[in-house]
């Protein structure tokens, strides 16, 4: 028996090492896929080792459950559209959180009711922490999922006294936690903690609007790791603590990157309600912006005579599912000898790296996608900057207008290009709810319409020109 336990511990050690190596490789494009496989192997080793545990006796139920879970997981992973990646990550994240809650609750129940043993203080505290973080992750992720999917209003939902209510709920949850630790056999306190934490998760994500989702998803990702770590403390299991910490760190780093890209603090994002301020300051002088429209044919002619084009995709491209026609446009232009690059703003889309995944799906090689800092100086030497479904991330007000809510946010300097073509459905403001003064610039032309339909027409025109 002793040897078996030792074997399990060694397997966990090997698994931890493989997880660390896997996540390291996941950070480099050349090795990322192998890194992911390596971490899957690590997971497999950990699972097999756990099956050797002497407490694990009911293999039939375990195997059936694993089989069902794997089947559903595989089907979802195969079928999900790349445009829906943020929803899927949010949902799976929620499952991770829920699983932490259930494991901790199971251990709590076993100790409080079945083992007839008194619960040590440390276990009580860690169980409560695990339940709270896991439950916040679960309900918060579900709200994020609902917002991304459009089931719940994607805009920031605010009401008076929101922050006071959240603070009160948090304090009550802490009080209930103390009661759980002091009276581990009264499960009503545990249920209270669970309910309050679920409510807190919902209320903290509700006031955060669509374009802030990259921050929220990163943060919830981090929480799911922290929840796993906390569960590791409950079970005295190092592999959970280590891997949970890795995920927690990765989520926090992504959160920081996203906040920096929006020039906002995490607190500011979490307080929510961004872009809800209406009225005076938003109009930026109150002048009506006069825009110049451009048609499909004329755009095609502009593209034909251009020698360099930078395409700036945004969430609108994802919504219109336009990534494939954009690839066609890029291919067509490249065949004519035009240089084509893609400029990616860190917060474009609804999750970190969202645009990169969509363009990769459309078969655009990743070395054509250039980060903001590297491409910003190139706009001045570029004939056409084509903006597809992006708005706030190209608003020059962020550089020039100290009164603007987005002032100071790093943007793509598309206005420096010789000609800017903006492909957009309507004149509606972007997420920040402000006018984009770029649209009134002399070098800016508006190409109104659905991104997919419009770009398809432009490509058609270009093909005709080639044959004529």
């Amino acid at each position, binding site marked *: 028996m002793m040897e078996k336990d030792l074997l399990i511990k060694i397997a966990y050690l090997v698994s931890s090492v493989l997880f660390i190596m896997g996540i390291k490789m996941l950070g480099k494009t050349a090795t990322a896929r192998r890194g992911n496989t390596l971490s899957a192997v690590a997971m497999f080793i950990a699972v097999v080792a756990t099956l050797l545990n002497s407490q694990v006796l009911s293999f039939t139920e375990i195997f059936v459950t694993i089989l069902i879970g794997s089947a559903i997981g595989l089907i979802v992973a195969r079928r999900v559209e790349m445009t829906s990646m943020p929803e899927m990550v949010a949902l*799976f994240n929620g499952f*991770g959180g829920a699983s932490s809650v259930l494991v901790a609750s199971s251990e709590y129940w076993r100790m409080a*009711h079945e083992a007839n043993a008194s619960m040590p203080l440390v276990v009580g505290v860690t169980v409560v922490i695990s339940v709270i973080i896991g439950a916040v992750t679960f309900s918060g992720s579900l709200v994020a999922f609902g917002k991304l999917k459009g089931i719940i209003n994607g805009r920031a939902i605010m009401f008076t006294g929101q922050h006071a209510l959240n603070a009160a709920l948090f304090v009550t949850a802490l009080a209930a936690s103390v009661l759980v630790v002091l009276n581990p056999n009264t499960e009503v306190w545990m249920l209270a903690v669970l309910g309050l934490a679920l409510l807190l998760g919902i209320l903290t994500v509700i006031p955060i609007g669509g374009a802030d989702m990259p921050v929220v998803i990163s943060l919830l990702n981090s929480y799911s790791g922290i929840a796993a770590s906390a569960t590791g403390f409950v079970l005295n299991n190092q592999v959970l603590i280590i891997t949970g910490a890795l995920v927690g760190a990765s989520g926090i780093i992504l959160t920081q990157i996203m906040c920096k890209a929006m020039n906002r603090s995490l607190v500011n994002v979490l307080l929510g309600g961004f872009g809800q301020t209406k009225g005076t300051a938003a109009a930026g002088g109150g002048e009506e912006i006069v825009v110049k429209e451009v048609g499909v044919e004329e755009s095609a002619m502009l593209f034909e005579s251009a020698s360099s084009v930078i395409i700036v995709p945004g969430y609108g491209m994802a919504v219109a599912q336009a990534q494939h026609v954009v690839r066609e446009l890029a291919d067509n232009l490249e065949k004519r000898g035009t240089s084509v690059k893609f400029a990616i703003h860190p917060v474009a889309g609804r999750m970190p790296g969202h645009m990169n995944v969509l363009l990769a799906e459309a078969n655009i090689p990743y070395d054509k996608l250039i980060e903001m800092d590297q491409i910003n100086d190139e706009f001045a030497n570029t004939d056409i900057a084509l903006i597809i479904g992006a708005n706030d991330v190209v608003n020059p007000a962020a550089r020039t207008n100290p009164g603007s809510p987005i002032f100071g946010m790093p943007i793509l300097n598309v206005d420096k290009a010789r000609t800017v073509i903006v492909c957009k459905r309507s004149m509606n403001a972007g997420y920040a709810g402000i006018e984009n003064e770029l649209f009134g610039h002399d070098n800016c032309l508006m190409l109104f319409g659905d991104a997919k339909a419009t770009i398809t027409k432009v490509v058609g025109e270009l093909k005709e020109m080639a044959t004529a």
Partner: protein
Amino acid sequence: MNAETLIVLLYVLVLASFVGFELISKVPPTLHTPLMSGSNAISGITIVGAIVAAGPVDLSVSKVLGIAALLLATLNVVGGYAVTDRMLKMFKKKK
């Protein structure tokens, strides 16, 4: 669990967090989504705890909770790794 074990576990937590910050701080933006979905799959490591919780032969509340945890954790793990692999397969350099 005694205080000494707790301290050891805290050491593990702190050191692993530092390793995590070191490893992930320089990830290129191209990989942000796969990193997120991949690390999401990794957070399904609670599957280990779920298996133990679902382990006893006799049916009990804690076993039912364990089985529910196992189902969700498996979904998280398998779905997460599969979708990350699908994404990473698409990332190609210029031929």
